[in-house]
């Protein structure tokens, strides 16, 4: 095994382990804590990238089958087995990711017995399931032959044509139905991507990109496994040193032909896209400068235009690097298109853009990595890529005795990789834990504003809170506040105006001014009082009283309410405070506390410095008028004005 291959496998294993942990967390903690999905974006990365794009990119199973079995283009026969393997793993990995995506995975079989034939998703489910069975049947002769089940595999070979026909039919149904899934969102999906022709676009682009993907896989596989240009594909530029002659091998020529077929389908797709936009009168949307229009143009450029241009040039088409680039671009473009239709096209309709969580990325990429590993394993152990496999078999006898005894299979497969793979696991699993563990994530979302004050009080009656949102934590005696404000019933007094992702009312809501009420405005009591006073009739007089204080046109916050003094003109005079009269006794502790802090010291200094007015009300308060009573002079102004005090003497 070359070192390049080994490093690639290590990376794939790494992602596979990430996916393992992400999957476990998903099952253990549920969708909410592990994913970024929300009620606004119910479908995310797993469904759109793994399922819809993953299935679309595995179309090669049916397109190559169509070319070889129906159109009898025998030159593509060597690609049949790889195509089937890609389809099998593509569909398998998609279904695996989908199992983690659906809310109740243990009910995945429900559509088998509970039918709703009006649903496109129902059609997709059945077709995908049946097609997965078809690919299994198509793949099994290759596998079974190695285990000596000659008879069964021969029998399976005989029904191959029938199976292929069924497979093509199922594919053409569900690839278009995947597009039809989005027909139900005419008002939510961006107009550039929404179209009545979505099913047509989906199947055409999937056919083209599926062919491109198998070209990409074949070239990448050759580069990794068959560096020998005589049997496989030519890995140099394909041009002789004098630059005049092509040396494409017959296999390369076949691939180039396949690329030409794929890009001609892409050309039809490109034309249809613009015809559709023109038909709907939405061509101008392309040039309105929104990010969606740029994304749309980029998508078409990468997915269709650039691959077409690359494959039209014969020299590029026949060089593995050129064709590989075109194939990769087209495959990537297909995934981008599905992401646009399934995710980005909805952003204009949601409050905040959806960005997949790390766990979502981990599981998505990890499932794909696992599929790639299985692909490598099967292609190494079974004759998928005929020539290269046969050559490897001739070169070494490792694989010949690998299946003689079970112990030897495990020996060759496990022993070579055990140490490396377990090492990767030891590194990947803790990293996955750090990145995906939902409780770690939950800490971020609350901004750590509230913490139990460990060390100060183990019973957690004292919290460290960043109440004023200024990054400074203060000790907050929670139980004490609770007791003073009225036990359990009092929670809403601080917590009911909580803002999203916030835990409670900021301190300054109550403690902004030392003479302000240290209690949230007693709505209920006021409503009752006003209702009694005004003798309002109707079913629920309490509800009519809102407009007595609040401006009904405004959002009913403290700022649009009447000032307290408008009703409590008499009450606001000194010694006649509402809390004294109503015995609410709410602000008094705080007021007296503040007064004590200041006045006690002022009294002392009064004697010390011989300034008799220092402890007088007017030293701090502008006047004793109710309106001005709240506004205390700041300590600085008092210090700056020593003269009037001495004069008063």
């Amino acid at each position, binding site marked *: 095994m070359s070192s390049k291959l080994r490093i690639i496998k290590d990376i794939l294993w790494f992602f596979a382990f990430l996916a393992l942990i992400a999957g476990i967390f998903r099952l253990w903690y549920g969708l909410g804590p592990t994913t970024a999905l929300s009620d606004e974006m119910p*479908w995310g990365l797993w469904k759109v990238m793994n399922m819809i794009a993953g299935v679309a990119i595995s179309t090669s199973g049916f397109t190559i089958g169509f070319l070889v079995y129906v159109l009898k283009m025998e030159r593509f026969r060597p690609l049949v087995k790889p195509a089937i393997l890609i389809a099998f793993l593509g569909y398998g990995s998609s279904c695996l990711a989908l199992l983690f995506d659906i809310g109740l995975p243990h009910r995945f079989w429900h559509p088998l017995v509970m039918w709703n034939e*009006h*649903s496109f998703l129902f059609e997709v489910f059945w077709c995908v399931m049946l097609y997965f069975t078809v690919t299994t049947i198509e793949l099994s002769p290759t596998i079974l032959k190695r285990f000596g089940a000659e008879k069964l595999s021969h029998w399976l070979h005989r029904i191959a044509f029938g199976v292929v026909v069924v497979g093509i039919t199922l594919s*053409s149904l569900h690839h278009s139905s995947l597009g039809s899934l989005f027909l139900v969102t*005419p008002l939510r999906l961006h107009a550039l991507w929404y179209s009545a022709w979505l*099913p047509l676009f989906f199947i055409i682009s999937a056919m083209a990109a599926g062919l491109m993907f198998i070209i990409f896989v074949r070239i990448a596989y050759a580069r990794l496994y068959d560096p020998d240009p005589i049997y496989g594909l030519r890995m140099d530029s394909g041009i002789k040193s004098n630059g005049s002659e092509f040396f494409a091998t017959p296999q390369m020529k076949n691939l180039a032909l396949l690329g030409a077929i794929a890009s001609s389908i892409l050309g039809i797709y490109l034309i249809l896209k613009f015809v559709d936009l023109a038909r709907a009168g939405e061509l101008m949307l392309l040039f309105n400068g929104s990010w969606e229009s740029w994304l749309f143009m980029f998508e078409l450029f990468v997915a269709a235009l650039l691959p077409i241009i690359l494959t039209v040039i014969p020299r590029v088409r026949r060089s593995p690097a050129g064709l590989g680039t075109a194939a990769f671009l087209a495959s990537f473009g297909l995934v981008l298109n599905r992401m646009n239709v399934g995710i980005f096209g909805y952003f204009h309709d949601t409050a905040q853009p959806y960005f997949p969580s790390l766990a979502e990325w981990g599981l998505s990429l990890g499932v794909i990595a696992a599929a790639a590993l299985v692909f490598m394993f099967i292609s190494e152990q079974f004759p998928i890529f005929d020539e290269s496999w046969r050559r490897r078999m001739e070169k070494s006898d490792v694989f010949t005795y690998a299946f003689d005894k079970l112990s030897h299979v495990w020996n060759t497969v496990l022993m070579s990789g055990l140490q490396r793979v377990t090492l990767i696991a030891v590194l990947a699993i803790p990293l996955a834990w750090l990145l995906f563990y939902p409780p770690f994530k939950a800490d971020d979302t609350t901004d750590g504003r509230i913490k139990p004050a460990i060390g100060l009080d183990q019973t957690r009656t004292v919290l460290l809170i960043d109440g004023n949102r200024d990054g400074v934590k203060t000790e907050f005696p929670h139980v004490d506040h609770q007791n003073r404000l009225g036990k359990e019933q009092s929670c809403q007094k601080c917590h009911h105006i909580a803002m999203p992702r916030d835990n409670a009312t900021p301190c300054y809501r109550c403690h902004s001014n030392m003479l302000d009420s240290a209690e949230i405005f007693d709505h209920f009591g006021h409503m009752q009082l006003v209702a009694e006073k005004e003798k309002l009739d109707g079913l629920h007089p309490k509800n009519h009283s809102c407009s007595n204080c609040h401006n009904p*046109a405004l959002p009913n916050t403290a700022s649009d309410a009447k000032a307290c003094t408008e009703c409590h003109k008499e009450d606001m005079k000194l010694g006649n405070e509402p809390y004294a009269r109503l015995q609410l006794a709410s602000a008094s502790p705080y007021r007296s506390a503040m007064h004590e802090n200041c006045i006690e010291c002022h009294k002392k200094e009064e004697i010390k410095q011989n300034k008799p007015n220092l402890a007088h009300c007017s030293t701090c308060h502008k006047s004793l008028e109710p309106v001005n009573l709240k506004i205390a002079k700041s300590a600085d102004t008092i210090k700056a004005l020593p003269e009037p005090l001495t004069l008063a003497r």
Partner: protein
Amino acid sequence: MYGILVDVTRCTGCEKCVDACIKANNSNYEKAQIDSVAARDGLSANRLSSIIKLENGHFARKSCMHCLEPSCVSACLVGSLTKTPEGAVVYDPSKCIGCRYCMLACPFHIPRYEWDSTHPYVMKCAMCIDRIQDGKLPACVEACPEQAMIFGHRDELLKKARRRIAANPEKYINHVWGEREFGGTAVMYISDVDLGKLDWPKVPASAIPELTEPLISKTPVIAMSVMGGILSINWIIGRRMKLAAERRSQAENLEPEVKKDQDDEQ
């Protein structure tokens, strides 16, 4: 076929209906309080109805519109959502697999998911179908102190709405939201302000199942024609190749290998 008529001019936004809804659905009150600010429209799995603030101090109740041709019902692949004869769109949690296609399909963004649960279900208003079957009013309608909502047969409600608009033409906008939008809904609105905030379409849109139904009903035809097409193409090509082979064997001087290579060159 029952329905609810919401008169936006009467709603004071007191949220009594929301409280009643939370109580009637046995939702978690504290979670509902948190969700009321967390979600853009105040709807969540714990809060199946909410009050939306409109311009000029107007309020409107938002909840399931109970479409006459519901998109969610046609979208659900296991038939977990159904339209009852009473007119309510109800959800059967025992069938649901959690694919959330109904949430994508609903033009009003109504179905909500229990994201925090490990055994999550879709939550949506069922028009208090149990209460209706017991002969009672839906909880929200019963709780409304202003009678901003009235419950009754849809046809009668529609007539009533028309009568109200006719009696007060300068106050109301001459439009009954829900009469024709998305094929008609059981919950209808009359108002003196625009209701775009409740996801009503600006131009009356047709029922969403009408977009998919014609296509999906043709599935067997498409399948049959694809299969027939494949077989006939295969037969034609097979026959042509056979004839070509016969012709070649008659000529007998052309190597098939060479021919193939020439094809490759193109």
